[in-house]
């Protein structure tokens, strides 16, 4: 039994890693911009499709451009659309970002068609690693390692750089940051682009594992919201812990009660919100009170 539990836990950590990456961008955008970005899953889809196109056109190294392009598209969307929502009712931002998600999905469908696009892991990452009872593919180890690296770099960026300090300060008191002479609107454009780029990384990593279709965001956006709600809105560490927990809980539920594997994350979220309405590491945000 211990062998089964270990295997499923490792499998759950890989899934959880993807959830973390999707959720962390959502969390950063909410924390710093105050926007609940329903289009976040669409940027995940864009990351997957761009990865596919870049690999087919230029080869595997070009895949690294995918999240950069997604980030760039995110910045354009912020300048043209999202920026107008900062002082509006939250409901308006929900509707507008939902419309943006539909627009992106329809555009992808128009270009690539509605059917799944074949995409497999790179040849240099095919094969397995077997540690006792644990079987994991090299590609999944790569996904875990990439996730950990991205999270570490992001944490260093937010905590140890002057730009990161501006972001954190701006999220708490944008007015004061503005009075200090910092061009906050420009900063917010970069933040939105960063959040979208991280979602693009998740899409790029998921593309060889999941089915690449215009609707693939459905499988990403709901777990991302669940992870953010469990971890606490705007909390970096909360999203990481919650994402990994959700992945492991889903994997273990598949082992023991597969029919419930689709619902378990929502039950987990409901339980968490009952016990801790702000989520695991959620803090009080004066701006949103």
């Amino acid at each position, binding site marked *: 039994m211990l062998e089964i539990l270990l295997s499923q836990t490792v499998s759950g950590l890989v*899934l959880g890693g993807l959830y973390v990456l999707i959720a962390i961008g959502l969390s950063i955008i909410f924390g710093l911009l105050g926007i609940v970005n329903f289009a976040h899953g669409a940027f995940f889809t864009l990351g997957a499709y761009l990865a596919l196109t870049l690999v087919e056109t230029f080869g595997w190294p070009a895949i690294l451009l995918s999240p950069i392009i997604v980030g760039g598209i995110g910045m354009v969307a912020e300048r043209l659309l999202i920026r107008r929502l900062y002082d509006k009712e939250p409901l308006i931002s929900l509707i507008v970002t939902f419309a943006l998600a539909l627009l992106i999905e329809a555009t992808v469908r128009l270009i690539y068609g509605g059917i799944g696009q074949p995409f497999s892991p790179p040849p240099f990452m095919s094969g*397995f690693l077997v540690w006792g009872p644990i079987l994991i593919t090299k590609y999944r180890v790569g996904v875990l390692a990439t996730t950990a690296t991205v999270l570490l770099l992001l944490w260093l960026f937010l905590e140890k750089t002057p730009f990161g300090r501006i972001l954190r300060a701006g999220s708490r008191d944008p007015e004061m940051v503005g009075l200090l002479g910092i061009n906050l609107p420009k900063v917010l454009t970069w933040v939105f682009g960063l959040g979208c780029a991280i979602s693009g990384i998740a899409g790029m990593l998921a593309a060889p594992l*999941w*089915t690449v279709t215009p609707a693939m965001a459905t499988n990403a956006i709901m777990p991302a919201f669940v992870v953010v709600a469990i971890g606490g809105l705007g909390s970096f560490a909360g999203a990481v812990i919650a994402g990994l927990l959700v992945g492991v809980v*889903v994997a273990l539920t598949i082992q023991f009660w*597969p029919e419930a594997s689709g619902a378990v994350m929502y039950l987990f979220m409901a339980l968490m919100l009952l016990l801790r309405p702000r989520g695991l590491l959620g803090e009080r945000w004066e701006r949103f009170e």
Partner: protein
Amino acid sequence: MIIETKLLIPRRKALLGAAGLAALPFAAPHIARAADPLKIGLLLAKTGQIAGQTEYLANGTMLALEQRNGSIMGQPAELVWLDEPSPQGATQNMQKLVQENKVCAVLGGALSSNALAEEAKAAELKIPFVCDNAAATDITGKNCNRYTFRLNTPVAVQCRMLAPYALQYGKKWYHITASFAFGQDILKSSRELLKAAGGTEVGVDEVPLNTADFSSFILKIRQARPDVVVGGLSAGDLTTFLKQWNELGMKGKIPFVEIAIGDTDIWGVGPEAANGTFTKLWDAYNPNNTPEEKAFAAAYLKKYGKPAADKAWMGWITARSLFESIDAAKSTDANKIIEALEAWKVPAGNASYSYRKFDHQMLLRNLAVSVREKITDKYDYFDVKATLPENPADLDKVFGTPEDVGCKMG
């Protein structure tokens, strides 16, 4: 400067003329109707994991109308396509098609759960409904009704056709099926067949729709060491499963079989990962296709720039059956269309396509196909192993007697 304007027609006469024109449809309804296009409803999912299949179903349907120069009964005809996002949403849209768009019949029903709800609504609205994709047994079984016709071979029948191929590998089966009508139907039928063959179910997983990661399920299958995995996953979920099945090194180690798949499900898997033995209704590369089907495949390739998937053919043949039946009925009256659909029959090689009168199920032979070892064309994946039943005379028997089927139309 004041410009004086003068009406060429006095105001009172103009008003009278306008009122007369507005009243014309009421005074002479036959003239107004002749100009109106005849409307056919199309109820197919526009998003979600089934959207890859519905794109082809819709393309095939539209091509069928185009090949008739866009007319039915010598009158311009148009398709009104609404979404089927869920069983409830689908029935609401069917009501909208009938009451607002005034369609005379509805084509569609991509997912079994939707189609079961849609057929009940069709009976309530008294509108002919021709289901082009869903395979749940009950659609033309115990839930059948006078207004519903169905193309796809019922799950129970397809399971009987596939069982000998699964049994070739052994009698220890693992079931992995979708936790909705289609998957539950496969599980029930497959378990009965396995029991009858004296086999053992070594594991079963009922998987939620839109599952993104199957690795935990695949680990369970690996632990259970079955002789064969019998699948019941639909569309995009099947694609994801097969991708991850290969990624986790299971391709070629444990055989995988499933009924009622679509070409698009396998195209999405890719040549490296695709594998398995399946049943499906039609294959664009099958040399036994009729001349009409070959012409359809050529027309599809010309129009859309890629080969016709089996789902495109399913949309096309279902639409043809309806359009030709309306022509034969010479009326949009539901009862007359139903009678014409019951009488509709076209040759298909040494067999024919037709709907059975007692359950409105289309009788047609299925293909047993296997993914070939080496794939050189990204649209041509399958070797046709057999056309089932081998003897067309057995069709009626294979699809079951009225007692087997349990359809009572009343």
